[in-house]
């Protein structure tokens, strides 16, 4: 009775098994959507891969996509598996061997899920040391569907993340809202805050070498709750490129392209509903 056959028997009970040589490829992506006021995440597993969703205040939704190609082994028995899990705890377990991003031996991960009602099992191994975690899963709630489709996109800007990172980190937190102006005319892209001491604008011209693509059809000014959108700076800081899109309703989609240590590209997406004091948001 070899270890491998033993394992194969055990594995048969799981509806999802995912193996990864470098746990950091997953933990970095999940870190981009994690913040202390967004602890519960919904995990969807499909044949394409894993999608982890976090929502705040029904206006912001952050999604992390881990396509099946990222994993060394990805086996799914059922289709459309979903469960909720405490993301803070998941992150702690994934980083159990330390969260240092320095090179060197990275822990390997094996993730197993037995189906509805069973806990998520994590097996992490680094240099022969094995850690075994079992995290309770929760009943999956309905996640919002922002109904954001590319057909309705009015303005789209793709730019390098570094300049936006500075701008986001320096945002005046005494302001309630972040106003984003996108326009085919000057100032092209403007981030504004209205704080206690005054107003701050950051203008990004389309000619800038930081801007890779600029497709704006109409001038749009939308305001988003700053406290909710600020956490997206985490995704900005690990990503190389970001795409900002707004649709006709003023909903904002931020897509971050993150390159992991093995050179694979993963995406993190933020959907933000505009801050409208007068009317209620309308989700389909």
């Amino acid at each position, binding site marked *: 009775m070899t270890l491998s056959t033993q394992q194969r028997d055990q594995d048969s009970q799981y509806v999802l098994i995912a193996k990864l040589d470098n746990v950091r490829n997953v933990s970095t992506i999940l870190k981009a959507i994690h913040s202390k006021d967004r602890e519960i995440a919904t995990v969807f597993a499909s044949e394409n891969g894993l999608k982890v969703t976090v929502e705040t205040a029904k206006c912001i939704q952050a999604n992390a996509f881990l396509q099946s190609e990222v994993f060394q082994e990805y086996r799914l028995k059922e289709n459309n598996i979903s469960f909720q899990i405490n993301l803070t705890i998941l992150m702690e377990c994934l980083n159990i061997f330390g969260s240092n991003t320095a090179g060197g031996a990275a822990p390997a991960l094996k993730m197993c899920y037995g189906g509805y009602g069973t806990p998520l099992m994590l097996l992490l191994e680094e240099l022969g040391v094995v850690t075994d975690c079992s995290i309770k899963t929760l009943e999956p709630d309905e996640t919002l569907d922002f109904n954001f489709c590319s057909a309705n996109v009015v303005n789209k800007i793709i730019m390098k993340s570094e*300049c936006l990172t*500075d*701008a986001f980190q*320096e945002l*005046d937190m005494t302001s309630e809202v972040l106003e984003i102006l996108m326009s085919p005319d000057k*100032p092209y892209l403007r981030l504004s805050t209205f704080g206690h*001491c*005054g*107003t*701050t*604008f*950051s*203008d*990004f*011209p389309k*000619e*800038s*070498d*930081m801007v890779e693509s600029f497709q704006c059809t109409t001038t749009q000014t939308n305001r988003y709750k700053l406290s909710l959108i600020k956490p997206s700076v985490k995704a900005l800081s690990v990503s190389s490129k970001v795409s900002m899109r707004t649709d006709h309703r003023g909903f904002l989609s931020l897509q971050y392209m993150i390159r992991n240590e093995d050179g694979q590209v993963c995406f993190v997406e933020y959907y933000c509903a505009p801050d409208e004091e007068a009317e209620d948001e309308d989700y389909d």
Partner: protein
Amino acid sequence: MKYVILLDCKKFRWPAVSLLVIIEVFGKTVHALSRFGDDIYLEPLEKGLALKTVNSSRSAFAYVLFSPAFFIKYQSRSPGDGLASGDDEEESFRCRITAKSCLRIFKSPTNLEKNVDRCLISLDAQECRLIFQLNCRHGITKTFSLTYQETETLQAVFAKELSPNHIIADSRALGIVSTSFKPQQEEVTMTVNPTELSFRNYVEDEAEPGRVTHSELKLPPQEFSEYRIGVDTEVTFCLKEFKAILSLSDTVRLPLNIRFETTGKPIVFSFESEGSLEGTFVLATLADIGASQSSQQTQPSTSHRNISGRSHTTKPSASSATTGRKRSSKNADREGQGERSRPIKEDVEFPDETGWHPHGPQEKGNNDQPPRTSAGSPVFPVNSFTDKLRLPPQDMSAPQDISTPQGNGVKEAVSEVNSTFLANFMGDADQEAEEHRLRTSPIRDKGSGAESDDDDFDFVPNTPPSKKFKSMFFGSTQSQAAGSSRDVEENAAELSKSRVLAVDSDDDDD
């Protein structure tokens, strides 16, 4: 848009010094000023852009002037301005912005140097906003539109030319001072004599002398490019502000001029680069109130004993004949270290022997200076303290010559002693009238000072009684214990009137 000032951030060859980046200097100036006070006063003048600040207890003042040569373009008034409303031509715009908002703009001066190409400061009078526009690399523009408050000019009154002591130091020579003391150390004492300069941490209440760390740093005069000591003295000032001054003078790489006289008189630090930049920083120095007070409170013999005792425990290095100068020895200056105020003590001690314990502070005119705040920063006597001693009302804003002879002080102090003596023998009613008379003059003076917050820089006497005061009272002999606490209360109440003449409580004792 009214006033326009353009700062170039490209490397600029500073006259006389090596390459310096303008916006980094500007940013570091903002940082230094924010360590002084909460607000930065901006004043675009003909001669340049003035940035000033004062700390909350009005005991430290900073002023940096950037001359037009510092900027690519400097326009301190819009065309056609000034004469329209028939105003005085010299009428210029003055405003004050919070240091916090300024710091947000110039958050990291070194990063600024890397990222920012140009900075434009302009005033939008219509919207009442002060606009800082930073042109960063990659074509990104950051605009900060700050709200401001119009204000009167901020002026510190001091006469730096007449100081007997003058030192010119390289920031490198004094840089070691910044690192030599504990970060929480609030005040530092600088002692000078022709042969050496020393810095000591200032320790306030030496309740347990054995437990307090004493650090001393000595520098030989050779370290300084100029070292002229006219009066051997020691001055105590706030370390936090001193460090800010040192770091700024290090940034601009200019020698620092230090001019001071003696205890209680302000110490003035300045640097100047002809035609580009000039900085002046005035710090109040701690007036040696404590020394004279305790001498009055206690019997002469015991006081001596205490003092000598204290000197020994706290100053193990009391080798030199500088015992008299030591802070711990409350009667330090008594030994005649050029403290012209000391002669007053002779007169003040007299009441001791009659069994009446004066409220020491009253005799010393110094009490009229607002006592130190609980934060411990020394008080900035804008005008010479002898002013306060004068009973008839004085014009507080009149600039005073530091060299006003202390002789006046002596006479005035004596008359005060007499008046309090008199009070002793007077009936309550008369006494109140007398006190009221004595009180009215200072009130008027202080009142004017207190109201005009933004007016010509006057000290504000509404600061709480200093710890030094309290400790001095409570540390006095037992016989006085009851009286002291009452005294303190009375002092606290009357401090706003600043002339502490509370004699009532003592009458009960007699």
